[in-house]
């Protein structure tokens, strides 16, 4: 079901420093986001997780020093945030095609592609519905499809499921994994279980300026089952680690 045309991209941050209101958020941060994998970033609020996504998305409001390089170079990204940001005046189908509309690239093939995506996410019945007529989970699925519709080689997701109930969140995690296989995904989350279910790699941010710890030897295939012994064990050790760091940072 994965939609991928472009080869996945990797991102390398070299000596990146960011100041936020005079406080250093990153101090000579060095980090590589692996190509074709889902990397989850975990950490407490205010440690710079979302800022990292904004940096990679070239947000003009963020000033930084250092270099951010993509391989292959000149990559474009797509973005999904905590709010679905669906336009209330457009049907779900038009919302999924928003990028094409905003660039003036609407054609029969883009329309058809949006319909195929909606069908694959079980939303075919709601193509012509307005966002106000949809549940929170459906809306967030729509936002995911809008992100995938962009066919970018790097997907940035900033706590995309944090506003959803537990069951819908699990379903959307599975859907996202199945639809983003072989893509480079950088997903920021508060939830260690989400990171464990979805991530090929987990990066833990702690303290300010941020210290980084990378866990890359995660066993098994994603999406991992929440109740699987390996996942449960890792969840426990991840929670202990986060609580220890949270305690130390206070």
């Amino acid at each position, binding site marked *: 079901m994965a939609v991928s045309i472009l080869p996945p991209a990797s991102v390398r941050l070299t000596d990146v420093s960011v100041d936020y209101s005079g406080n250093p958020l990153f101090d000579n941060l060095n980090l590589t986001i692996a190509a074709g994998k889902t990397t989850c970033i975990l950490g407490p609020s205010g440690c710079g997780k979302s800022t990292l996504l904004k940096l990679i998305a070239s947000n003009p409001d963020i000033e930084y020093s250092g270099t951010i390089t993509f391989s292959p170079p000149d990559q474009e990204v797509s973005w999904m*945030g905590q709010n679905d940001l669906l*336009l209330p005046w*457009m049907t779900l189908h038009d919302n999924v095609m928003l990028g094409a509309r*905003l660039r003036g690239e609407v054609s029969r093939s883009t329309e058809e592609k949006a319909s195929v995506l909606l069908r694959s996410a079980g939303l075919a019945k709601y193509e012509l519905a307005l966002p106000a007529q949809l549940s929170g989970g459906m809306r967030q699925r729509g936002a995911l499809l809008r992100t995938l519709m962009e066919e970018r080689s790097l997907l940035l997701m900033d706590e995309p499921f944090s506003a959803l109930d537990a069951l819908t969140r699990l379903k959307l995690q599975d859907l996202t994994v199945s639809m983003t296989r072989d893509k480079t995904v950088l997903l920021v989350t508060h939830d260690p279980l989400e990171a464990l279910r979805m991530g090929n790699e987990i990066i833990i941010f702690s303290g300010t300026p941020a210290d980084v710890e990378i866990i890359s030897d995660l066993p098994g295939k994603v999406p991992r089952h929440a109740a699987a012994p390996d996942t449960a064990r890792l969840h426990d050790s991840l929670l202990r680690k986060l609580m220890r760091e949270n305690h130390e940072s206070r």
Partner: protein
Amino acid sequence: MKAGRIITLAIMLLLVWQLIVLISGAPPYILPGPWPVALAIIHNWQELWPHLQTTLVEILLGLLIGSLLGGSSALLMTLSPLLKRWLLPVLVISQAIPVFALAPVLVLWLGYGLASKVAMAVLIIYFPVTSSFYYGMQRTDRDLLELARIMGATTPRLFRYIIIPTALPSLGSGLRVATAVAPIGAVVGEWVGSSSGLGYYMLYANARMQIDNMFAALAILALTSLSLYFCIDALITKLHFWESPKELIHEKTY
């Protein structure tokens, strides 16, 4: 239900009018009752109709030009922060000068014809339209703008698909106010100097002590303004289809 409420309200207002006439005992040359005014409308319709046309054209042209000017100013201010710093004071000045005081000047400059009345209406509605549209556009969600930037949106399409629809509810409020006040501009313009229009007809009838005719013109003006308001209100509600109007407080709660 809605039509029934409007008819009931109209009947009640007419009754109150008639009651005031009866209680005050005012002579017909001071306050005629609803019936003589209705008769005056019927008898003088041939005479009133051209005046109504004149005033209606003034109001509609004023609304159209004022909305276009106000809308363009708001768009320009949104597109260029530098221009905004220059235009915003002009906007405030346009409100600081009492527009009614400008009426004689406008008649002097633009003559007794249509232009001076349209200019009055334009001046009155320019501010509500511009400010409501401008501040409506300013309320666009920053995350949505960032999403559009990442998607590579072109500026005209960003306005068409995101910024202008965001501003529509606010612009709608501005346009409703504009529709309600535009007739004031047109009529004041007619009072200062004109040879046709309902405002002119009111002065003409007043000077000849034809008070029922004066009230007939006033009633037609009120009906025209109301109809115009309801048309614009319906149009805006239709354009703003994704949000049905809701009361803030549930009626059954209190």
